[in-house]
């Protein structure tokens, strides 16, 4: 079972939380191609390794926050509030940053 440290309430068990998918996604302009729009709507980072993701403390304070978690080991590397910049880790793949940039590009 995952145990997450809500930035507002502290460490709680997983059943209190709801997963909200990848974080830091920016909606592109409306004028973009169907391919870019489909990418924004449906395509998410799904790699084996670090994932920046959103969680909701549903049965707690009811607030959203970000988690940096390893999808292979479930190790939580960082917890940070919505709006904060994502923390970078030395081994992180450059490609993941490029992909995030591509999603937001017009």
């Amino acid at each position, binding site marked *: 079972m*995952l145990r997450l440290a809500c930035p507002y309430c502290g460490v709680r068990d997983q059943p209190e939380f*709801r997963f909200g998918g990848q974080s830091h996604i920016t909606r592109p302009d409306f004028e973009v191609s169907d*391919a870019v*729009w489909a990418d924004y709507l449906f*395509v*998410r980072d799904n*790699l*084996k390794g670090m994932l920046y993701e959103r969680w909701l403390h549903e049965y707690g304070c009811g607030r959203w926050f970000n988690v940096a978690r390893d999808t292979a080991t479930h190790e939580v590397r960082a917890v940070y509030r919505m709006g904060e910049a994502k923390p970078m880790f030395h081994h992180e793949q450059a490609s993941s940053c490029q992909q995030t940039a591509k999603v937001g590009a017009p």
Partner: protein
Amino acid sequence: MQRYSLLNLARNALRGNKDWRAAWRTPTPKRGYDVIVIGGGGHGLATAYYLAREHGIRNVAVLEKGWIGGGNSGRNTQVCRSNYFYPASAAFYEHSLKLYEGLSRELNFNIMLSQRGVLSLAHSEHELEINRRWANATLMSGVDSEILSAADIKKLVPRINLESRYPVLGGFIQRRGGIARHDAVVWGYARAASALGVDIIQNCEVTGFQASAGRVRGVETSLGAITADRVVMSVAGHSSVLAQRAGLRLPITTMALQAMVTEPIKPALDSILVSGAIHAYVSQSDRGEIVIGGAADAYNSYAQRGGLPVLQGTIAAVLELFPSFSRLRLMRHWAGMVDITPDTTPIMGLTPLEGLYINCGWGTGGFKAIPGGGHSMADTIANNRPHPLIERFGLNRFENGALIDEGAAAGVAH
């Protein structure tokens, strides 16, 4: 291929069973093939088999990073059915179920298909209505379906507790649905494909792709480079990881799906029971184990293990339906990595890289689709265009918006 028959069984028994040969060859990989299939699960092996059998393409390699059937093909809960809501899905899964019905004979391998009926439960008036609509949609697609009252269900499943926390008000059944031995399906396809000349290479991980001028030329593997003008990926939960090596991003989320079996008992449960509302399904295997599964752990994971909350919820739901099962001990519990798409419909067909084909996105229900998936992918690869049954399942549906949202019809909500 050494045929399996009563005569052969008796002959070998008299000789002390010393003359049985390995069911498939263990070749060293050649430098190149006409087609490379990545992934030695059910879908990959079936694709290779039908390429050789239906299309005469026998210079084929199946590359498996572990051992064949060691991934989701050996971890699923063996359910076969075709009662999907949308016509495009029903047509495809019905094709697959029909292939299953003739598969033991075709492969000369007993896959132990047991069509004992897949029964979906309704726990509220609203769900009853939705079930009726679903059952009728299924009938319109030419797939057998029958609406049942609570009394009908009690007759079929005497041990069920209709007055559970979420009472059982009715349901519907596909009587042709059932279970098959999942290992046998994998072994049967491997043996038959190998006999037709397909090379099955285990412990061979694909680490990259060779491409030039916009088309695939081969793959890099842990055993060296292997060339092929046509390559198909059928690697389920690891599809995003592999696709990234070919420069593709997929609309897939990989999650853990748990399942478990109890100690074996005498026959106690005939039908396969599915409940979307309480997120559980349960059946009894031919070995006597009660097989239990539930919803996926709802967050990205490649850990091949699940979390306790989903496990507890699933067990609690099953024990409400079958209080007598509370005395059984769990014998094994495991998880597989499932590749879930936004509309819970698979992704099959061509990719932007010419010569590279994809078969993934089966989510929590790929086992039932093994024969149909392999059959239609082989046709797609041989003719370089989507087989008519999978035209709607292409990657392009996310751009043109023609999604097939089977989430509501998939039995257990994802």
